[in-house]
């Protein structure tokens, strides 16, 4: 009898449907995975004591293999990516699933702004991912992020904070009630990339101008003096020359000063900060900030050694990579393109300049959290631990220098490609860096500082004090809304 006679079309459809349903159930169902467990057993031991045979009961730990059923879990991971990060995270999640076959990772990656807004929308809709990368302080304060302290305490043997740069540890602890960083607070935020600041300088321009390279103990005054010697307009005139044209500059002595981070570094050198220590008000009207804004404004509009001033001088296309900027303040996130794309001049890094005998350096991590609403906190923590493991850091190191966050980054493997570029400056930035963005709503006020500096340099404020008044008012608005609920 042929098959056609045995199986009608209806029967065939029924059979196919049953098979499909069975496959689906099997795929969704728990997967049996062998697991090695330890067990304490009692057993009788016979031994010879002083010539007599004695039998006694002893407890012994034995290893037994037990067949357990592990639930198949899918975790959603949302994050922002740039450059080669997409591939890095794809590889990382694939390797994680190889090691943990019962945990599958679904990645939802995008650029910074899109990721952050999508996360907020997902949280608002009650559909957050399990693990996510972004900007977290506001959501911690709202109670939407899981405090991982119990996990950290439980797994302290395989999770050692000593392996991390200090600012990454500092960043992790948060006082949820007061919405501020607190070393005694809960453990919420886990670094996955660490950024420090250095000054990149163009050796060729220094050599041509006959200016000595920055040293470890150089100062902010040195920076201004060097920049003055390095700046020249299209006709070769330098600042201070009668015919110098600040609107048509060929080589800028310095760049990157007109922003929140360098300003905060300078102000911190003088003992200043954005807020009063008790968070009661903005501290922007105080002397450290007056000096900071004055220094930046002088560099731009008085000495004319930095673009962005009222005269209309602009940064050349490509910035430092154009070869027309002698010194640039920046983070180590530009290292990869600098290493691969700068071929027509030698460059190196210098640590942050000193002021009043001390050096301040800003550092900040990108970080992951586990959302409180996750159905799988244990699996999410397993994934988080993997993300923070030395294995992953070493993977970072092997892939075009994304910024790792563990001290393993100081290994020869990582620093080798930086030979000749003075990697000690970066090492110092990682080790000495203090958090530049740590408090709730800082993302809202950092922009205000940058806005104020931009307008001050463009000549839109009457004075430094006016610019600082405006900034303080703006920051106080944010503070009133977020820091003091």
């Amino acid at each position: 009898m042929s098959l056609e006679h045995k199986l009608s079309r209806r029967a065939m459809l029924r059979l196919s449907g049953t098979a499909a349903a069975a496959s689906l159930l099997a795929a969704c169902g728990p997967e049996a995975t062998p697991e090695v467990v330890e067990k304490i057993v009692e057993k009788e031991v016979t031994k010879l004591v002083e010539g007599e045979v004695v039998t006694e009961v002893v407890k012994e730990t034995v290893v037994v293999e037990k067949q357990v059923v592990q639930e198949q879990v899918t975790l959603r991971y949302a994050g922002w990516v740039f450059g080669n990060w997409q591939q890095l995270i794809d590889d990382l999640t694939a390797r994680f699933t190889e090691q943990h076959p019962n945990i599958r990772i679904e990645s939802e990656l995008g650029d910074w702004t899109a990721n952050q807004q999508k996360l907020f929308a997902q949280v608002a809709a009650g559909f957050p991912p399990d693990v996510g990368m972004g900007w977290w302080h506001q959501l911690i304060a709202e109670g939407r992020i899981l405090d991982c302290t119990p996990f950290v305490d439980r797994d302290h043997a395989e999770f050692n904070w000593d392996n991390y740069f200090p600012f990454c540890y500092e960043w992790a602890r948060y006082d949820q009630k007061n919405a501020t960083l607190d070393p005694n607070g809960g453990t919420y935020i886990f670094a996955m990339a660490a950024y420090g600041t250095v000054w990149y300088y163009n050796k060729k321009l220094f050599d041509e101008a006959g200016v000595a390279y920055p040293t470890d103990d150089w100062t902010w005054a040195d920076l201004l003096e060097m920049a003055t010697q390095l700046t020249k307009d299209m006709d070769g005139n330098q600042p201070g020359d009668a015919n110098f044209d600040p609107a048509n500059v060929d080589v800028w002595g310095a760049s990157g000063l007109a922003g929140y981070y360098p300003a905060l570094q300078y102000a911190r050198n003088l003992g200043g900060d954005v807020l009063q220590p008790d968070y009661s008000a903005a501290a922007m009207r105080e002397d450290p900030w007056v000096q900071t804004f004055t220094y930046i404004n002088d560099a731009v509009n008085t000495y004319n050694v930095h673009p962005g001033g009222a005269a209309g001088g602009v940064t050349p296309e490509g910035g430092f990579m154009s070869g027309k900027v002698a010194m640039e303040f920046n983070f180590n996130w530009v290292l990869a393109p600098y290493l691969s794309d700068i071929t027509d001049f030698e460059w190196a890094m210098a640590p942050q300049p000193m002021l009043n005998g001390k050096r301040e350096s800003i550092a900040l991590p990108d970080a992951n959290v586990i959302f409180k609403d996750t159905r799988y906190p244990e699996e999410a923590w397993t994934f988080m631990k993997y993300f923070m493991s030395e294995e992953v850091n070493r993977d970072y190191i092997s892939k075009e220098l994304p910024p790792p966050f563990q001290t393993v980054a100081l290994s020869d493997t990582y620093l080798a490609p930086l030979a000749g570029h003075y990697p000690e400056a970066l090492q110092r930035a990682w080790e000495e860096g203090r958090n530049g963005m740590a408090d709730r709503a800082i993302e809202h006020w950092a922009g205000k500082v940058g806005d104020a500096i931009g307008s001050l340099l463009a000549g839109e404020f009457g004075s430094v004090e006016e610019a600082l008044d405006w900034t303080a008012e703006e920051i106080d608005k944010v503070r009133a809304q977020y820091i003091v609920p």
Partner: protein
Amino acid sequence: MRSRLGLKGSVRLRSRPVWVEAFYGYLFISPVLIGLVLFILGPLIASAVLSFTNTTMVSATQFIGLANYRSLLQEDDLFWRAMRVSFTYAVVTVPISTALQLILATALNRGLRGVSLFRVLFYLPSITPSVAIALLWVFIYNPQFGLANFLLDMVGLPRQMWLASSKTALPSLMIMSIWGSIGPGMILFLAGLQGISETYYEAAQIDGAGALAKFRYITVPLVSPVTFFSIVLGLIGALQTFDAVYIATNGGPRYATLTMGLFIFQNAFTLLRFGYASAIAWVLAVIIFGLTLIQFRLQSRWVHYGG
């Protein structure tokens, strides 16, 4: 046998019960009705309710009565700043856009060679995604290597910071907006112009009217329904401006381009103040409704139908 309609034989019209007709009617419009309820009426009602709460959508929500409205009208400087920016933007862009649309449409309506090509060229910006247009203008306005400063250099004028300066950012955005809105309005005006009978122009010519007089006394009044339509929609669109501002300046520098649309978005999706953002949205909606109502009331003074 005769039916009620007097039809013979088997040809009969059977009247269905009214409810069956209604059922099919509703069935056929149900996709639109469902969409209307789910995506327009639902959010409208939800936002109205949310505007009386302090919801962040991620933490506990409390009913706070009119506190959001009181706060934004009495205490929030940024609300008034955003209102001022939006109205300045609308008051400048809408009349200029409308005038340019009419002038261009009139020029293209004269049967010149290559008119179709010009129509396509002028219409192109309106079929290009607004994000792409905004990015293009960000490039044009780039102080370092943008086309705008390149042109200023060519004619010997000082370079500008364009979107980077609080003094020039809003005018720069207005230029963007006017450029992008010319196409669709021009097509409407073209349609309106083609509906004007040539006899009016011939009669005016016989009476000795010049081109300007014909434009002033024939064209402008007879396309006034299109002008009215263009102004009403233009004003609504201008007061709701969001995407170009979001891409190009995100409200900066120093709130110089903070429009109401962006202010609502920032409160909702950056600051998570969904209740407050809903209140702002309703205030804006009431303002737009009021302005539209005023325009409809005033149209009898200057809009001529049936020309």
